[in-house]
């Protein structure tokens, strides 16, 4: 993601705001796979992922005028939309009641963990293990866990505290530290790239 990619996305969003359908098609070509993959990772179901991805692009179309470049990149804005819709979907389906544990190493001896996971959940776990191999690999397990629960499950501070059986203050500190570490890691990468 270069600055020029970001500028290209911003211009496409401006065109979309001007009701340019072809621009939405281009935006789909550029980021449809990423948004679909993210949504699929969150909802864990192919059919739902399709539906939510479609909703996300409709949302992008409807709300392009609210995108504000001074607050972040177009991709960040789209990712936020996709995440929110996907997390809402899991809530509407009562996913949380199904004890859909993320792949937490210490989650296996969690009191709330239901070992009789669906086959689908097994697939999700496998995918999540791959995820951990990517962006989150810079974090140690406790920090990875809080980010995983906040980012992919949309849990609040108290929800994370409850799930991990740790104090609220610890959750807050870990989130701050984890996000800072991820940020530093990204910046480091960019510098070593150039």
């Amino acid at each position, binding site marked *: 993601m270069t600055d020029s990619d970001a500028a290209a996305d911003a211009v496409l969003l401006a065109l979309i705001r001007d009701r340019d359908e072809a621009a939405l098609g*281009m935006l789909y070509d550029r980021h449809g796979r*990423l948004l679909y993959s993210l949504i699929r*990772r969150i909802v864990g179901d192919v059919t739902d992922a399709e539906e939510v991805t479609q909703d996300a692009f409709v949302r992008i179309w409807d709300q392009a005028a609210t995108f504000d470049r001074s607050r972040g990149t177009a991709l*960040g804005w789209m990712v*936020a939309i996709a995440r929110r819709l996907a*997390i809402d979907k899991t809530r509407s389906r009562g996913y949380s009641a199904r004890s859909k544990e993320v792949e937490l190493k210490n989650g296996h001896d969690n009191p709330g963990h239901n070992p009789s996971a669906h086959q689908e959940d097994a697939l999700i776990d496998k995918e999540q293990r791959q995820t951990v191999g990517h962006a989150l690999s810079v974090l140690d397990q406790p920090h990875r866990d809080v980010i995983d629960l906040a980012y992919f499950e949309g849990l609040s501070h108290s929800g994370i505290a409850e799930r991990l059986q740790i104090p609220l203050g610890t959750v807050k500190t870990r*989130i701050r530290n984890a*996000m800072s570490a991820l*940020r530093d890691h990204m910046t480091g990468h960019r510098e070593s790239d150039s």
Partner: protein
Amino acid sequence: MTHDDAYQLLESYVLGALTPEEHRDVEVHLATNCPECAQRLKELDEVCANLAQGVPKHDPPAHMKSNVMSSIQARSKSGTTARPATRINLSWLVTGAAVAAAVIMFFQYQNVAREADDLRSELIETQDVTNLLSMPGMSFADLEGVGPNEQAFGKVVVDPMRGEAVVFMYALPENPEGMEYQLWVMRNGQPTSVGTFTVNEDGSAMLMLDELDEEDEMPEFLVTIEPEGGQPTPTGMMYLTTPGVDAP
């Protein structure tokens, strides 16, 4: 909520992990346009986008794009007026002051340009161009055709905060063989090249500039025709200027 309180919650704010009350309090603080929080928020927004990149990738089903497009078309049927469609040439020229850098960057963005050639855009009227990037903090200027080329016109949109500009140009004559247009930023009457470009079949071109200097809140622009590759200073005929610019 004080700045310190809000700042400490920004990580959780972007993740959506705050209580509704905390979330609202942070938004109230952000609405004060606190520069420090705004900067941090942008960084965290990038982290969130980056976390998405780490997810295992799956190709969406082939029919999904057409489903998306038909949902959009169904929505946009209600009440939009048809506007003259024209093709714009999104030549993504991203450049600092150096022409060499500009040329390298230009080739890097050929892909985007090629995709964009298929983009049937609706922006020929000046007003549309204004709408196009009328986002908060943007400033605008017109480009006017000069002398025999008075039919040409353009629009500059500058984002002073990011030091970026988008330049749209229309109705320029096709550049002759071996010649290219060259865009200059005028500072204190001195032209600095920001790169060369060719126009699309319909005489339009669109350029993106970044790394404008801070003092370039709304710099003056000049377009001349020059031998391919550009010149260190303008030598050829002037085609477009921001109003008020004298020939160098």
